[in-house]
């Protein structure tokens, strides 16, 4: 039986006549990295805020670490770390002092823990520099360090790569992967950089206008992302005829610009190129391609633009 860290049932949040969340049933398996995908205003932060206790649902319920009574949920949040919307720091305090506030608050024994975590996120040497003078990337890393205090079992990260430079994004991804691998920490993460999320998450949830459209594992996603051979030739109509006759398939699309997408023969591309060449066609481009998370997401939400 799958052990879930978080489950929501018919979770709804309504502001006047608008639904920020509409009957969301979400389940996050223990040990997973759950990538939460949606446009701005889709409901990602609202769900994270409710799970973190910052906001309250209009109806529906949540189950955190198997607990669903209100008092038990509050207690269960001690096993969680979270960054919601911003790193939430005291700008007049140093990195160490920021950590100390939260160490005291969580009752984490031993100040030595602070040094270890600051080392982990690369902020050990910031000394007396105030958090208010940190770069956005440093603030995000300090926010993560605070969330990691007390060895949480579940981490909620709302756009943790905001403001990070490309190297910072890679470092953050590798750090989260490593912690997940070494400690089994479950992570719920939202990000606008879907390519990054694709390299990190083991599970996905797609939310659109407050409704959870789909939940799938990385394996299911890879299966559903359509792969094809991208072929650009000098005469696409003749190429289409060759494919139909010689390769005996109609599973292809003729696109604009002389491009053909062939959804068969992915395992035998050589056969395709030889038949086209034998028919005297000039092959300008020939490569296997596939949908990535970004295009899959766009397809799922119906290609809608930003709200």
């Amino acid at each position: 039986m799958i052990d879930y860290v978080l489950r929501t049932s018919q979770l709804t949040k309504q502001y006047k006549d608008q639904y920020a969340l509409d009957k969301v049933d979400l389940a996050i398996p223990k040990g997973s990295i759950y990538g939460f995908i949606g446009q701005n205003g889709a409901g990602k932060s609202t769900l994270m805020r409710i799970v973190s206790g910052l906001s309250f649902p209009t109806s529906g319920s949540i189950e955190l670490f198997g607990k669903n009574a209100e008092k038990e949920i509050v207690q269960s949040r001690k096993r969680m770390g979270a960054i919601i919307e911003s790193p939430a720091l005291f700008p007049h305090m140093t990195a160490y002092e920021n950590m100390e506030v939260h160490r005291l608050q969580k009752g984490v024994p031993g100040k030595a823990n602070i040094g270890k975590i600051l080392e982990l996120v690369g902020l050990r040497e910031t000394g007396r520099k105030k958090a208010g003078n940190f770069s956005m990337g440093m603030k995000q890393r300090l926010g993560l360090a605070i969330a990691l205090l007390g060895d949480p079992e579940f981490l909620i990260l709302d756009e943790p790569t905001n403001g990070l430079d490309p190297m910072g994004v890679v470092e953050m991804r590798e750090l989260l992967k490593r912690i997940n691998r070494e400690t089994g920490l479950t992570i719920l993460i939202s990000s606008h950089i879907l390519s990054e999320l694709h390299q990190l998450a083991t599970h996905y949830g797609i939310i659109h206008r407050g409704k959870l459209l789909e939940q799938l594992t990385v394996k299911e996603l890879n299966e559903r992302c359509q792969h094809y051979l991208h072929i650009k030739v000098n005469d696409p109509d003749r190429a289409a005829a060759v494919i139909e006759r010689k390769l005996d398939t109609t599973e292809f699309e003729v696109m604009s610009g002389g491009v053909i997408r062939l959804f068969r023969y992915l395992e035998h591309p050589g056969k395709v190129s030889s038949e086209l060449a034998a028919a005297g066609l000039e092959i300008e481009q020939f490569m296997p391609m596939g949908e990535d998370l970004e295009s899959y997401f766009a397809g799922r939400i119906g290609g809608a633009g930003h709200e």
Partner: protein
Amino acid sequence: MNNLILSEWYKLRKNRSFRSLCLLLIVAAVAYPLFQYYVPPRNGPKITFTGIELFVDAVGINVYFLKITLGVLAGFFISSEYSSGAMKRTASAGSSRMRIYGAKLAVYSFGAVIIALLFPVISVIVGSSLTGFGQLTDVNATEYLFRTLGFTVLFAAAFASIAALLAIAMRDSGKSIGISLVFFLFVDLITKLATPYFPIIKTIYDYSVFNLFMTSIQYRLDSNDDLLLSLTVPVLTFAAFALLGMYAFRRKEIK
């Protein structure tokens, strides 16, 4: 709860506005008697005062200091946590909203008490070291000193409880400071203006901490009723506003 209080106390100690207010009050409390002692008025005799006389002056001035500083501290200690986002961390760390508010109020009130005591206590120490402690004609000076300091603690905590509720309701340090200042500084005036139209307001005011604070610092309390009211009203005010604050914070959405 203990963890929360330790954490709040750490934050208060590191709070710049708290440190600045304390420093300002210490400087004022030291400078005030020194100025009076070393700079006599032009064409007039040198002012002589004793420590306890200076204390009486300081207590009168302190009422206004307290009303101003409480709002400033509430703004920077409580409301600013909303704008920095720090309140989100606290609220998501696994403690109930009641405990979070309780710890914050306890430490903020403690800070308010420190601020309320600094000016009169330092004044009496500096004054006494310059000219001696002295006597009062109407009342035993030592008894008056400790009674007034005791009431200052009670009333500071009661005012803090009101200011904390305003700060939680406002969420923004600027608004919180502004509203607190207007409320605390003009509550007496507003009451006077409103009394002809709503006589009940006068009765409420007479039994409120705003009026009783002034009563409690008089040399003599006219009756046992005044003493009893000066003891019970601030305690009840603290309790009532603490409960109101907890109720307001219990289901508050934290942005």
